[in-house]
């Protein structure tokens, strides 16, 4: 467990490397999904093209949207975009930077799927087997005696090994090889284009607007950190609030006020303060069956209000307390009894 915690800490401490990790996981998931997916070309003239092309195009769209869903920064971007201006100006460059960085990360898994699909060649074969140009193979276009429709139906069966019946017209392996070769060429071309684009964006960017880039990077990271710190502070606040609220509720039911318990012990007060809460203190004044039952019953039927009393503000108004107001005047306060 320690190892996992350490890895989690290392990844989370650096927000960027965490997002890169998610990005890499999605790319691997995309490749794995492709290999485990059973490609099933229908081998029917009307459906081949739609099946082949949708296998190439729809999963990347799905991965792209999934990348947005898994990215925490999307909600941050939306918040920053929609918030009222208030006392803090909005910086469009920061929002552009966040949008671009989110899109860049989300584009990796779709690119992996598209390139793996093109390299494998099955979807291209399924989509374009009917558009095959027979003259490439040196075959006479009209020497087989089949009508146009029958020829199309035969060509559509090329992706399916077991039902292809046109071996005498056109060798299935030759056609498959030809189309796969074109598909792979497209795949490599696609990879080359996106690598060149990424290279231009990353390696050439420092030539332009480097100072402005540093600024937007800092402030976009700041917005993210601030949101996290705000959530942490709210959680701590809620914890403190809840503790005091519950303590006051218990005290309210039991009728005793625990905070003055120690002050009545004279010289021992300092020692009492240092000792950790004794068992007696933890009971918070609830020591009997019926009192505890009342605590539990009222917690459901009559929850206490969300208002914390200040220390000394006893609900039973004992000791005839006088209202004292403090005036702050330089460093000296005057008490007004």
């Amino acid at each position, binding site marked *: 467990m320690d190892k996992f915690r350490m890895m989690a800490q290392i990844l989370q401490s650096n927000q960027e490397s965490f997002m890169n990790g998610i990005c890499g996981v999605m790319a691997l998931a995309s490749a794995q999904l492709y290999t485990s997916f059973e490609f099933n070309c229908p081998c029917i003239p009307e459906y081949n093209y739609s099946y082949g092309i949708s296998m190439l195009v729809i999963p990347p769209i799905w991965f792209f949207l999934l990348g947005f869903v898994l990215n925490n920064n999307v909600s941050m971007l939306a918040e920053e975009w929609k918030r009222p201006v208030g006392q803090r100006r909005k910086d469009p460059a920061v929002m552009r930077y966040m949008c671009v960085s989110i899109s860049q990360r989300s584009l990796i898994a779709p690119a992996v799927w598209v390139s793996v699909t093109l390299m494998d060649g099955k979807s291209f074969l399924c989509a374009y087997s009917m558009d095959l140009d027979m003259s490439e193979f040196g075959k006479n276009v009209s020497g087989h005696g089949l009508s146009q429709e029958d020829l199309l139906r035969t060509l559509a069966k090329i992706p399916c090994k077991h039902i292809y019946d046109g071996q005498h017209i056109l060798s299935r392996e030759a056609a498959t090889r030809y189309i796969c070769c074109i598909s*792979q*060429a497209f795949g490599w071309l696609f990879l*080359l284009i996106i690598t060149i684009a990424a290279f231009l964006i990353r390696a050439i960017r420092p030539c332009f607007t480097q100072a402005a880039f540093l600024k937007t990077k800092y402030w976009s990271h700041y917005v993210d950190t601030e949101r996290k710190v*705000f959530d942490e502070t*709210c959680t701590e*606040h809620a914890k403190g609030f809840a503790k005091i609220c519950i303590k006051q509720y218990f005290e309210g039911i039991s009728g005793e006020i625990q905070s003055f318990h120690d002050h009545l012990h004279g010289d021992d007060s300092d020692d009492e303060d240092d000792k950790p809460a004794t068992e007696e203190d933890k009971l918070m004044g609830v020591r009997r069956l019926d009192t505890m039952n009342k605590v539990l019953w009222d917690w459901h039927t009559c929850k206490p209000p969300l208002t914390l009393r200040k220390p000394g503000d006893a609900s039973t108004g004992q*000791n005839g307390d006088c209202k004292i107001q403090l005036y702050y005047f330089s460093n*000296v306060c005057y008490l007004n009894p």
Partner: protein
Amino acid sequence: LMDRLKLVLQYFQSNSESISNGICIILSLISVKLYTSFDFNCPCLPQYNKMYALGVMLVPPIILFLLGVLVSRHTGVLMEEWVRPLGNRTKNPAVVKFLLSSMLQRALLAPMVWILMTLLDGKCFICAFSMNVNPKYFTGIPNSTGLELIKIMAKVPCKEDVIFKNSSFRKAVSRYVRCYSQAIGWSILLFFIFLGAVGRVLKPCFNHATFLQTRYWSNYLDIEQKLFDETCVLHARDFARKCVVQFFESMREDVTVRMPLSNALRPSTIPNEYEEEEEERLHGITRQDQVDNLLQTWYECKPELDVTKMAYKPKVCITWEDHNGKALFSEV
């Protein structure tokens, strides 16, 4: 074990050269894996064989080279150092040249691995150059199919074609071309290793002192940029924390402390530490409507980015006086 792992990680992270070497090696392994999982599909047609084979041999190395340049840390440092304005710091062109050469050397490893693998494997060569072989040297050519010679030679890379059944012609031609391919591959490998060895051995003979300087300063630039990024991150965190706490406290209402004056009480200036910590976490927000108001304002009217007020927060000191104005107890 965990300490050792931590030490190892720290060592690798502190030494940027070893990180670059690691990335370089990972890219080479990716290149190997990519080649073995790639389904080589020679079209076996005279007009497309050469194009396909040379494409497979040359396009992936370009992609791997660009990737190597992209993921290298030195690229960013190099570009920034090259294009920055002069400012207060002079520019040293030797450092830029050093960074460029070390980045190029590392980026060239994965492409070389791919090219060597294609040559040693031989499939690409067979696909590209089977048509250039003179079939006179081989027996058993299938000339009963009525196809032209060049089409037959173009089909040599494809094992499953029917015209080569019961004939050892195809295997003989393949073996011949593969032999050439492997010879070229091994010679290239030998050449580069020789070049590397000679370069390594002879380098200290030229300008070693200058080399030590440029290496130091290029390493320094890298570390400086990393430290700057880290400092920005830490600063943003502290800035955010102060801003948020200040926001909480600005939503606080005026404090009226009501304290009963009982003889049994002595004003305790050291409250229970536990309670004080809790009070501090509350930042003065103690009611539901205050919390609601706080959350609403956080969205509608974010505080300005200025935490100088925090540094000058006035301290509260209490002085207890009796009716005559004589100080009984004071914190001043």
